[in-house]
């Protein structure tokens, strides 16, 4: 049992979903190489990694769509079977709905497959579509909807049976800013209601904004896992952000001993400092080179944490 500091939950937070030592090969390619991580009740986890790192494979295994060569998935301490999985909510990376089916019929059907009674399925489908703002399109075929609305119906399909855990593969991909806000709101609500949410994304800034914790995956291995704040604090690197008007890099920071460019910026860079060089040494060198527009000591961003974890 552990609790996130500052959380306002009334109940103790505990691990509910466990991925244990998942390994999967496709031919000669090792897609997952002993992936393990845990997700706690009400926790929202950003699942982050480059293309081909194994995110989709791990999620598919968690949902039983794919089998692992080794390892297992546990829910509340027990291996996941079909009956348990029926209470999971899943949104695959490649969206899938029956194009010719009416929106409401489709959601009722999926809810029924998840074990809801006909009456409950209908009521829940209507409610979910209402929450997601597509209540006026229930009689339309899916193919008649805009892509944005299809995305909403897809999300509704993952939520309609009131799942106990949500696993969403790239849920924000293809959403406009309004749609992204709706989705973020829904995910926050679900997490606040105690439903653990795991979602993968390429948009690291979005993950940073939405999640308190992340799992970073690279080449089929988890390279970092935990609260973003903790990962930041644990990052030993010293970073400064500096912008100087009208000075070419080779005039000053490229020649600074003990400083390395992490991220080039239009008028400057984020630099990582090594050894005995101090932050004010950098500032002095900048002032000697030109007009300093910006100088700050920065916390590593998620992408920098990721880069650090991969290099480690």
């Amino acid at each position: 049992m552990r609790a996130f500091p500052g959380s306002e939950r009334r109940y103790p937070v505990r691990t509910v979903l466990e991925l244990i030592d998942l390994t999967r090969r496709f031919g000669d390619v090792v897609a997952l190489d002993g992936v393990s991580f845990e997700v706690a009740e009400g926790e929202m986890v950003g699942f982050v990694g480059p293309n081909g790192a194994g995110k989709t494979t791990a999620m598919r295994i968690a949902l039983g769509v794919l089998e692992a060569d080794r390892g297992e998935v546990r829910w509340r301490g027990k291996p996941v079977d079909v009956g348990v999985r029926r209470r999971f909510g899943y949104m695959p990376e490649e969206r899938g709905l029956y194009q010719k089916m009416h929106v409401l019929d489709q959601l009722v059907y999926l809810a029924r497959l998840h074990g809801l009674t006909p009456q409950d399925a209908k009521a829940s489908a209507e409610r979910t579509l209402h929450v997601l703002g597509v209540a006026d399109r229930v009689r339309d075929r899916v193919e008649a909807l805009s892509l944005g609305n299809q995305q909403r119906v897809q999300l509704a399909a993952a939520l309609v049976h009131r799942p106990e855990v949500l696993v969403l593969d790239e849920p924000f991909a293809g959403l406009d800013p309004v749609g992204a806000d709706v989705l973020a709101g829904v995910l926050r609500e679900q997490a606040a209601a105690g439903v653990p949410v795991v979602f993968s994304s390429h948009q690291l800034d979005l993950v940073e904004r939405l999640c308190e914790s992340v799992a970073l995956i690279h080449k089929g291995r988890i390279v970092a896992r935990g609260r973003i704040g903790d990962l930041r604090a644990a990052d030993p690197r010293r970073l400064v952000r500096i912008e100087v008007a009208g000075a070419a890099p080779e005039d000053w920071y490229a020649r600074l001993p003990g400083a390395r460019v992490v991220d080039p910026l239009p008028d400057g860079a984020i630099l990582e400092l090594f050894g005995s060089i101090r932050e004010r040494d950098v500032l002095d060198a900048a002032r000697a080179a030109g007009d300093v527009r910006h100088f700050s000591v920065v916390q590593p961003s998620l992408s920098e944490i990721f880069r650090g974890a991969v290099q480690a």
Partner: protein
Amino acid sequence: MKPESDEGAYWIVARREFVERLHDRGFQISTAVTLLILLGFIVAASLFGGGTRFDLGVVGDGARTTGEEVVAAAKLLDVTVTVHGYASVAAAEAALKDGTVDAAIIDDREVIVKSQPPARGQQLLAMIQAVTARERAGSALQGAGLTEEQVTTALSSSPLPIHELRPLDQRQREENAVVFVGVLALYGQLFAYGYWVAAGVVEEKSSRVVEVLLSTIRPSQLLRGKILGIGTLGLCQLLLIAAVGLTAAQLAGVLGFPAGAATAIGWVLFWFVLGFFFYSTLFAVAGSIVSRQEDLQATMTPLSLLIIAAFLVGITSLESPDSTLALVASLLPPTAPLVMPSRIVLGQTPVWQPILSALLSVAATAALVPFAVRMYSRAVLRSGRVKIRELLRAERRPSS
């Protein structure tokens, strides 16, 4: 709760397949078109069928007697002749002109027609000539001094007996027609509904909805539910067509032996069920290895050829239901559905053969389903064209 809702998923899938396709505009139109074609055939059969019909006018008593003899002679040739009596030659000529009669016999002296008739009408004239020739021969013989008794004996010498190798009475002729239509319908239905299973699998695969479904239910539930739903719809459609066809045929008076026809239809329906379940599992595998509807034709080709071959054997065995080819084909599960119904209805088929054939079919399907489910599960989540050889290789490995 779990095992119950496990089975539940299977029924929910089947129900969706049934209901969605029932509401499909294409399905409704094709059903309506099929019914219209069938009704058209029945109407045409009642108008032109039932043998050839002629109307014969007669003037005078002698002519009337001749007319009756023509009617009797015509019956042997499966031709119906109706005699209309007229008081005068003028009345008979009027009837000829307005088409009420095809020919008229005047007092045994002459036959009048509107104009020299086409081939069909020649048949009537030939019969009249034959009947009157016999009468003229009788008069001539009597004139030559034979007694009436002798004349009758001479003329009523029995014709050459005809021995049919395979007697075909009216009832069998009808059953033959019903079975032919039935085999034709069965062939179309196996194709259409097998294709629907394959196309349904591809639809789920290409739209990727299959991943959502398989996160909730097992591949076997999805596959079996799909096959059950589509098969039930196919059976209902056949039942509807059969019911409408039988009713219409009876109303139109085309069918002399509705009970025989109903039995024949019953066998066709029974073999549809067996044939559909056998083929649909294979169609499902064919569907699962492609990702786009356009690629489906190619993977279905072997199956299509198999059904076409079965159909051809089925057609041949309508002619010779007791041949060795028909016997073998009626026992093998791929060909049995299109061959056995005609053998049961038309041939001298011992009871054990249909029973054995049905058991073989059920056994083959039962063996095929788990195999198909495994192939389907492996292929359905992969994108692009999956090689069947790869799937089979995975089959040989104990576990992957």
